[in-house]
């Protein structure tokens, strides 16, 4: 499944770039993320609990940041597997300064397997878009509470 879109993050480009790669911010912004532990350079082990109405599932996976071109683009690779299936998202995030902040464009693919793919087909697209929206909304909120933000913190 291909996904693409863009969000406005109301902070300058350089700051948006740092926010988007900060594990603390990522952990708080990714829907359902319980823990994010560093396991290597730009690589984190993640546990998440996805809850969507009655549907819920624990996922165990990895978050990886690659092809980082400071302040303009990077790839975010998120993969996870659990009893109800597995997913892998691979997206290129592109940052451009605009009035009022930074436009973060994303373009990539989401692969889903297992039960969620087989029985949730009707809702995959809606759900993926909703998760991304929630991520950016949380990120925007995080960027506003600047005091809580610590760029060097690693869990």
């Amino acid at each position: 499944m291909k996904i693409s879109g863009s969000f406005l993050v109301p902070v300058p480009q350089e700051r948006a770039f740092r926010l988007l790669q900060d594990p603390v911010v990522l952990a708080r912004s990714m829907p359902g993320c319980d823990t994010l532990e560093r396991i290597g350079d730009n690589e984190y082990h993640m546990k998440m609990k996805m809850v969507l109405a009655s549907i819920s599932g624990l996922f165990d996976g990895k978050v990886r940041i690659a092809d980082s071109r400071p302040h303009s683009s990077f790839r975010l690779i998120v993969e996870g597997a659990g009893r109800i299936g597995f997913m892998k998202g691979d997206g290129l995030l592109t940052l451009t300064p605009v009035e009022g902040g930074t436009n973060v464009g994303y373009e990539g693919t989401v692969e889903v397997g297992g039960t969620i793919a087989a029985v949730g087909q009707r809702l995959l697209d809606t759900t993926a878009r909703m998760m991304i929206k929630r991520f950016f909304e949380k990120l925007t909120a995080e960027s506003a509470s600047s005091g809580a933000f610590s760029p060097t913190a690693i869990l």
Partner: protein
Amino acid sequence: MIPQDFEYSAPASLKEALELIATGERKILAGGMSLIPLMKLRLAAPEHVVDLARVPGLDYITESGGTVSIGATVTHHDLESSPVIRGRAPLLAEAAGHIGDTQVRNMGTIGGSIAHADPAADYPASLLALEAQIRLVSAKSDRTVPASDFFLDAFTTAIEPGELVLEVLVPTEEPKEGYRYEKVAHPASGFAVVGVAARIKKAGAKISMARIGVTGMSSRAFRALEAEKLLESGAGVAQAAATVAEGQEANQDLYASADYRRHLARIWAARALSVALSRAS
């Protein structure tokens, strides 16, 4: 097709039910038409299920002071066949008749359906067009939320932890109003690929009020406010219907692309409005 272990409670009163759901992760079971399939597929694995089946007095349909009150455990079949609903909120009766199949309509409830908030469910379009209110109660609170603030996103509602849907409050339709619910049903799931609820009031030859709710097209049901305004200011059905999908993201799946869903929303809005208009006097 076997669910995981779960605890099960069947409280005998509303008070007891609210106390049970006040703490911990509790899942409310009403008709079970959404929850049970998910549990059998193990997509849902609640630790504790609270069944409302034995809570008395939640399956009422009453009318007073221009409002129809519908208890949370009223089934789709009850709504579809209720003389009160058919007489005073016929749009809702028409929508209820489109839900699932006979078995689902005999078991499924309005409270369960709206709390689940499937983006392709039938009720939300009508509840938006009817400007219904949803009453939510918890052990400590009792509040009423307009339908437009209730459906937030796919499977996401204004229900807070500890709350349950107590009743749905629908302002009565006037007998002179025209109404219509039209639906493109998915051939496998029966869910609305697109569903459009329309209400029209006329003053002479002119449209004095138009309400349009659209479900299935987007991640949540929405009101087509622009189209309503156009109709109320003298525009024709075709011109108004052409705007219903504007500014909305559209879902896509194996059956229908986002563009086709938008197209269907426009076509079926026009058809629903035409019927509603012909029924208005």
